[in-house]
């Protein structure tokens, strides 16, 4: 098996099969974080374009999704083109997104009255193609709907991000339900970086990669997005399975 990788015909065939299956991530079709420890954990070296990704807030942030929204803003800020942001609860504060590198001129908000309409808008935006990214704030994401979204994203090559937020913290257990998303992230807040003087330093997050298709779960301690939407690794970053920390953030 090993030496078949050297055979160009076999390699070519394998790539074509993967492309037919829709699981192939070709080079240059991922959006990397620019941080080797994170990118190495993701198949293809970054978040795949033409795929559905899921981001939720951890702990109390499951309701507000404040850190998750900034994490998403940092990701989509590094794409090209207009961003479509579908929502039903308009409580985003645009200056904060601008501080995370997402210029307000690039974002078009589509506000729906009902949750189901958000899902429809999300899918329509993904099917359109030609947008930099499509973000939707969703309460429920059933398996069927997520599969449709994933197919729509694959067809158009647009990156789709479902920002999950719930009405009550207890409902966040819904995040345990499987979906067809390529990666699933949970972002929880951590105490900010210490400063030598009183005050609040750069915000830090615990980013848990709960699921990655053809990859492994991992968690990272990261510094919040800077003015260009880039996250940083904390100086004493660790990755791996830290059960104690994870349990605390579930609470």
């Amino acid at each position, binding site marked *: 098996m090993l030496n078949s990788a050297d055979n160009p015909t076999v390699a070519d065939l394998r790539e074509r099969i993967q492309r037919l299956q829709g699981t192939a991530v070709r080079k240059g079709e991922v959006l990397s974080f620019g941080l080797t420890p994170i990118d190495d954990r993701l198949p293809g070296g970054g978040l795949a374009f033409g795929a559905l990704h899921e981001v939720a807030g951890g*702990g*109390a*942030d499951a309701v*507000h*999704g*404040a*850190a*998750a*929204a*900034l*994490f998403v*803003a940092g990701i989509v800020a590094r794409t*090209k*083109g*207009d961003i*479509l942001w579908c929502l039903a609860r308009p*409580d*985003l*504060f*645009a*200056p*904060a*997104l*601008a*501080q*995370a590198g997402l*210029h*307000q*001129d690039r*974002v*078009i*908000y*589509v*506000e*729906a009255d009902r949750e189901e*309409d958000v899902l*429809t*808008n999300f899918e*329509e*935006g993904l099917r*359109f*193609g*030609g*947008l930099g990214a499509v973000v939707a704030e969703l309460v429920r994401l059933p398996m069927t709907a997520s599969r449709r979204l994933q197919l729509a994203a694959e067809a158009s090559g647009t990156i789709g991000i479902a920002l999950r937020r719930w009405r009550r913290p207890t409902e966040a257990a819904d995040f345990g339900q499987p979906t067809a998303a390529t990666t699933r992230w949970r972002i929880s*807040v*951590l*105490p*900010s970086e210490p400063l030598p003087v*009183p*005050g*609040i330093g750069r*915000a*830090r*997050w615990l980013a848990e990669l709960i699921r990655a298709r053809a990859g492994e779960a991992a968690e990272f301690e990261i510094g*919040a997005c800077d003015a260009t939407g880039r996250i940083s690794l904390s100086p004493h970053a660790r990755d791996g399975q830290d059960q104690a920390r994870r349990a605390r953030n579930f609470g």
Partner: protein
Amino acid sequence: MVVARSGSKRTVAALDAAAFKAGARIGMPAAKVQAMISGLHLVDADPSGDASAIERLALWMLRQYTPVVAMDSPAGIVMDTEGADHLRGGELLMLTGLVNALTGRGLQARGAIADTWGAAHAIARTTRREAIIVPVGETARASINLPISSLRLPPDIISGLTVLGFHTVGELSATPRSPLTLRFGPEVGRRLDQMFGRVAEPIDPMRTADVIEVVRSFSEPIGAAETIAKYIGQLVVELCAALETRGQGVRRADLIIYRVDNTLQSLRAGTAKPVRDIPHLTKLLCSSIEKIDPGFGIEKLSLAATMIEPFEEKQSISSLVEETVVDVTPLLDSFGNRGQRMYRLAPVESDVPERNVGRVSPVSAKMDQAWPTRWPRPSRILKHPERIEVIALTPDHPPASMTWRGKRRRITRGDGPERVFGEWWVRSSEMEAVRDYYSVEDEDGNRFWVYRSGDGVDPATGTAKWFLHGIYG
């Protein structure tokens, strides 16, 4: 007071509230009113001028509200709003919005929405309320108490009926039909049937000379969705060809469906920018094809470009290295036609956070401005700041602990204050108001944006109560 002249007879045609109070009524001889009231200001009636003013109004409504608008003389406009109200947030919002818009222009207007033209005509003219909506199926109950003068009958028939003792529509409709027909002709029965919806009364939509309209009549009535879609496609091709000769693009296209039972339906598709793209227009119109109820069949389809604007021809990319800029307006059009709200957020010159962000149209020009602040801002902001209980050192230390939504949090770090002054040019009560904003972080790392109303020293600047306004990511 306005005086109309017919032959040598001069009668009152319209009057204002003061003249009404003094006892004048519409239809009185002008000489009698002149004898009753001194210092009367008389103006000759100008029926053609009135009619053209109403026509202008009707054309405005045609562009703004619904594809099927017609004059309902005298002094009225009738619209078929079925399938058009959701774009304005429902029937009530649409009607009150319309009446308010007319009042804002100095016109007195009353509106009614009912199942039939006859009922809406009568209710709008007889009730005092500005906007009335008769629920579906309630027309009969709503119209039995209306006076017979609202039935759109000639004056001599009305006076004849009054002599016989009829006053309300209900009395008239409960009377056997044949004696009435013998005496007054078929008009009475026809108007009654039209009011109660027993006889269809299609509205003949008005069109101006510059409206581009393409029509397709069918020898056999059509009904299948695929057939309708096929003919919509052909009509769009014709319409775009007609638009191309004039160098125009369509902003609003109306499809009117004439059914064999002499009723009509309409579909409206709006676009954010002038469009002459055949596949895009066809898709917009066909997206709501399931709303068409073909009934016994459709005999005629008519597609009109109600609102057109000059269309700019753009050269497509010629250079290979140049990056394509994708035009997102087709996507926005399809959202808009489903009634979703779309906007971009743009900076507004204000220091008060909730006034700092304004909604602009997604196709408006990009301004490339930025919010001037360097202070970190929370990513979620509460619509209404929530009261919190805090322990804090006055005057300008961040809180040491806070209680929000029943949960007490110990604050470990804080930044601030960032002082925001009230804007007296917006509201005079903000003359001395002050807010001191702090960002605080609790033990678990949750970060909040809180403020104290007032500067903590002078009670005139605020109540010194604390509020939570935003949540940091």
